[in-house]
């Protein structure tokens, strides 16, 4: 029973991790929090659902098209509402992205109505057994895709020219600007990449969750907690934080009450911050 809960938690944690990785990439480069990250996940769910409805294909086959759509949406949102406020105080960013979240929910509600939608996959009916533990295939796939996506992002940041320029921008914006790095482009890329990660998490959730306009809400809160827990801007921290959050939620849910799960995650956050105010993998506040 405990093993089963831990596995369930790790798998769900994988999805949390992916949303949080998206959030932490945006924060790492731009030093701002995207308060519409949960709604980007929702957009990913709708993109997967709509394409699935139109083509009849399994959402897993639609990963590349949905990621492409989400990347383009991310670029579009950036140039429309984010680019104009680059360099303004972080509070502007909070207000704008919160507003964006409302707009996205309303637009989706107008187009698709608030009805709950479902995506049916054959994978849903298959369970994978590991000794006494049984796991739903969609969850295992979600976890696998998360690992692949995170590794791909890391590889991109470490090994490509654009990735290195993004890291330079993330580390010291002023110096990067002084040396002629195209920091706007790197901001746009980081934002779109973060949105894409949220969208991919959304797609991975479609076989497990109902698709509806407000589905992103709980994910938004939990992914912010995870990012702070892991250390702002740290990808490894976001992954570990996501897995911890998933396990805590599953174990508390199974043994005590699902209602206590969020409280448990916040308790861990408080404990971690008490000992490491910069989060598990945080580098700490930069000296002025």
């Amino acid at each position: 029973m405990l093993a089963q809960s831990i596995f369930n938690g790790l798998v769900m944690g994988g999805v949390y991790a992916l949303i949080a990785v998206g959030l932490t990439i945006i924060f790492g480069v731009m030093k701002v929090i995207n308060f519409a990250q949960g709604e980007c996940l929702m957009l990913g769910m709708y993109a997967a659902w709509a394409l699935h409805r139109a083509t009849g294909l399994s959402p897993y086959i639609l990963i590349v098209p949905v990621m492409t759509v989400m990347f383009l949406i991310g670029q579009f949102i950036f140039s429309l509402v984010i680019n104009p406020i680059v360099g303004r105080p972080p509070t502007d960013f909070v207000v704008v992205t919160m507003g964006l979240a409302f707009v996205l929910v309303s637009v989706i509600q107008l187009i698709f109505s608030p009805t709950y939608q479902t995506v049916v996959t054959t994978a849903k009916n298959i369970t994978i057994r590991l000794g006494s533990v049984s796991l739903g295939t969609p969850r295992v796939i979600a976890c696998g895709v998360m690992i692949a996506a995170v590794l791909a992002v890391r590889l991109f940041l470490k090994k490509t020219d654009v990735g290195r320029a993004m890291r330079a921008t993330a580390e010291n914006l002023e110096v990067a600007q002084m040396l002629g790095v195209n920091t706007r482009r790197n901001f746009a890329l980081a934002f779109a990449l973060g949105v894409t990660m949220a969208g991919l998490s959304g797609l991975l959730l479609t076989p497990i969750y109902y698709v509806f306009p407000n589905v992103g809400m709980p994910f938004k809160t939990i992914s912010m907690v995870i990012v702070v827990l892991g250390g702002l801007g740290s990808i490894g921290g976001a992954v570990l934080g996501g897995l911890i959050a998933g396990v805590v939620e599953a174990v508390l849910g199974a043994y005590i009450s699902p209602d206590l799960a969020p409280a448990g995650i916040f308790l861990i956050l408080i404990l971690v911050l008490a000992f490491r105010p910069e989060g598990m993998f945080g580098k700490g506040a930069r000296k002025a």
Partner: protein
Amino acid sequence: MAAILELKDLCKSFGGVHAVNHVSFKIEKGEILGLIGPNGSGKSTCVNLISGVYKADGGDVLFEGKSVIRTSIAGRSRMGIGRTFQSPKPFTGLTVFDSVYTIAMQTRSYKEASKISGEILEQMGLSQYEKMRCEKLPIEKRKWLDMARVLVTRPRVLLLDEVMAGLNPNEIDESVALVRRVNKSGITVLFIEHVMKAVIKLCSRLVVLNDGRLLTSGDPDTVMNDPKVIAAYLGRGYHHAEND
């Protein structure tokens, strides 16, 4: 000769401190102009105002006759204003080679960028450190990494903020030769330095700041023997400060 850079009545205060107080001077195209003065006299603040890190409270900065006071940091860099930092600011997560290459890459093809990065690192004596992560690079080498990074941006004017602090006499001689080589390649230099030996060897003209004000300017001999300058240095002394 025409001025490539001109400071006009430039002002900047921090709280009650007038770090730069109505300062005006010109940098002529092709020269090495020395900017000296005791600790806290406003030299680094001038560099920060010219490169756009600080917003001036008043006055103007002209680059090739055009005001750049409203131009962004990035814009000034694109125009050809390059600088190093008194306390170096490496990209700690990247390797020495990658941090130069990433900058070179912004305006060049992959091939050209690799080539020029290798060459410049060699000139700076950093070839053996190419694969090292910048955070491990010895402190005294970091200024040269700053220099390598800014040189690949092809600056027209280079603001060097105390690149020789902490070097031994041999290294100072090498550095003097290097700065001269950079200048000969067509880059105008604003040279801030407490190492007077280097200043006298390199600079055709000096500008002296004291307490944020322009004290005097002129050829090195006259300036160094000026009683006002001697008094300013005796009054305040100088040491190699490693802060901004």
